[in-house]
């Protein structure tokens, strides 16, 4: 074995590992997908549909979303598939471009807070001591803060912009992944192979990157899905209250402008103005929920046993 290493040389092994990694990643994606339940598969397909809608928005729509292209409040018809809003903008294009908004915010917040918070948690769990204690207190307070009311107040003061919304959402959602990553790290740290690696002279960074991070990663991934649906809800809620970016056309903004239109409920307009964004939001959230439930089930074999009794 040792001879082999010498023959191959360091670079050879590295490239071999990398190739192996890619193969493992691809095959793990395939096997994970085959383990999904029917609901989970529906969820994955639904998300792919929404992503395609967002990516190919200019191709599948006839009009730009913020241009007046028809009469005010036109009913669905051949010219405008889903009709127009009060300014005469096409609703189908607003839905497609709005998907970009929701997905971007969801993914940005989830990845930054999920992996950033996870990294903080791993570091604190690994180092321990005062840093760990200080972090735990910060996490406790962050998790006890009433996040949505604070979100409203902060975005009211900072002014409506997408960057602000994303930053505030990150500020409120890093605590949970950090806490879970920390407890996972504490459990992994005590394993013999970690101690062995340390005794061989492995640097802290090497141990963290090679041993601990890959172990914590799957849990973080489930959390990231959860956070992204949370962020999408929060953005829609803020936009619905009128705290979104007025220049953007997100689904929450569409709900806001539709419900803000006086006497919308007494006219048939809500059928094509209010229902599409409502339906799309619920659809996206349900898909994310299905996926995260399935991932949880696959990653945690203990849950399966629990479900059995």
């Amino acid at each position, binding site marked *: 074995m040792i001879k082999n290493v010498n023959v191959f040389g360091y670079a050879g092994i590295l490239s071999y590992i990398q190739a192996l990694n890619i193969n493992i990643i691809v095959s793990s994606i395939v096997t994970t997908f085959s383990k999904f339940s029917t609901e989970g598969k529906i969820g994955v397909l639904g998300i792919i549909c929404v992503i395609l809608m967002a990516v190919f928005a200019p191709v599948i729509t006839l009009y730009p979303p913020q241009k007046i292209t028809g009469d005010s409040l036109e009913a669905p018809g051949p010219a405008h598939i889903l009709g127009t809003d009060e300014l005469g903008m096409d609703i189908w294009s607003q839905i497609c471009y709005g998907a970009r908004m929701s997905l971007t915010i969801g993914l940005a917040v989830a990845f930054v807070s999920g992996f950033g918070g996870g990294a903080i948690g791993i570091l604190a769990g690994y180092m321990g001591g005062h840093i760990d204690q200080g972090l735990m207190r910060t996490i406790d307070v962050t998790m006890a803060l*009433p996040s949505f009311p604070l979100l409203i107040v902060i975005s009211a003061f900072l002014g409506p912009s997408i960057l602000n919304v994303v930053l505030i959402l990150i500020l409120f959602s890093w605590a949970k992944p950090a806490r879970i990553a920390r407890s996972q790290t504490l459990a992994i740290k005590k394993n013999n192979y970690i101690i062995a690696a340390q005794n061989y002279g492995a640097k802290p960074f090497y141990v963290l990157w090679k041993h601990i991070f890959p172990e914590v990663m799957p849990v973080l991934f489930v959390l990231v899905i959860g956070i992204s649906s949370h962020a999408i809800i929060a953005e829609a809620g803020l936009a619905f209250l009128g705290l979104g970016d007025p220049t953007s056309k997100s689904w929450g903004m569409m709900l806001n402008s539709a419900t803000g239109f006086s006497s919308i409920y007494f006219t048939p307009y809500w059928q094509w103005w209010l229902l599409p964004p409502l339906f799309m939001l619920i659809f996206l959230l349900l898909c994310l929920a299905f996926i995260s439930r399935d991932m949880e089930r696959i990653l945690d074999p203990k849950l399966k046993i629990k479900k059995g009794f």
Partner: protein
Amino acid sequence: MANDRNSFVFRLLLTLFVILVINFFLPRMMPGDPFSTTSADEVGEEIIVMTEEQRLYYMNYYGLDRPLHEQFLVYMKNLMTGDLGRSIYYKMPVSDVIILHLPWTMLIVLGSTVISTIFGVFLGTLSAKNRKKGSDRIMMTGMIAFAEIPSFLLGLILLLFFSAYLRLFPLAGAITSFADYSGPAEHTWDILYHAFLPIVTLSLSQLTGVYLLTRNTLITVTTKDYIRTARAKGLGEKTVWTRHALRNALLPVVTRAGFMIGIMMGGVVLVESVFSYPGIGMILRCAVVGRDYPLIQGILLVIAVSILICNLLVDKIYSKLDPRVAI
């Protein structure tokens, strides 16, 4: 244990302090000061441009030229005496505005806590009794999918279907405007009629939590030895479930109900805006639209404090109910 308890209270106080600090510093972090710009509300009104002397005079008058820590102490002193400032939009003290609207919020939050607890326990028991059967699986999948819909979207659906499409329920408000009631019964009926959809929305959004909790604790409890003993004694199935199983399973549900109030206080803002229900959530939306900063801060404080109080109460009640915790 006493140490644990102290740290719990300490954590709540720390959280409250953080909220106060955010509340205090947010407006002061904004560029400019209240006197750098003045506007004229009505046409023809002269726009007052302050000289540097006048500006300094007013800064001194409102205490804005003092060091920040002194300002913070004054702010805390005002809070302690219940002075939350004056609302710009309503032109009256913030505390009065909040007191005027808080009862409506309390009505729908407490109402839906009671309703979702009762129904959640009922459905959870039903599900636990029929576990391993098809009906349990269907119910569980349905409830879990249901829980993923955020409350304000659910409220919007209910509003569109029952109020806009079927026209069974009112579209907005908490009472019929300019109504002339013949008696207190009719008055109560009108209030309940208006509160019905908001309460249903909030209850539905909380139902799944109670349902899952009841179901899971019941399933755990029924594997315990004392249940087998009860059955072996020859007690009827009904007595075993109500006296032995449910009684023990309800403990976590009580705490859950307490936390639920806290969660709903946060979510009620959106639900009230959907139904234009005149609680503090609705005035928060108005305050945001009108940039009525003192009112926004006041409402945030009220919501935050009520959530913290709920958590504290839950902690106290739980140790009373379950003697094992207090040891």
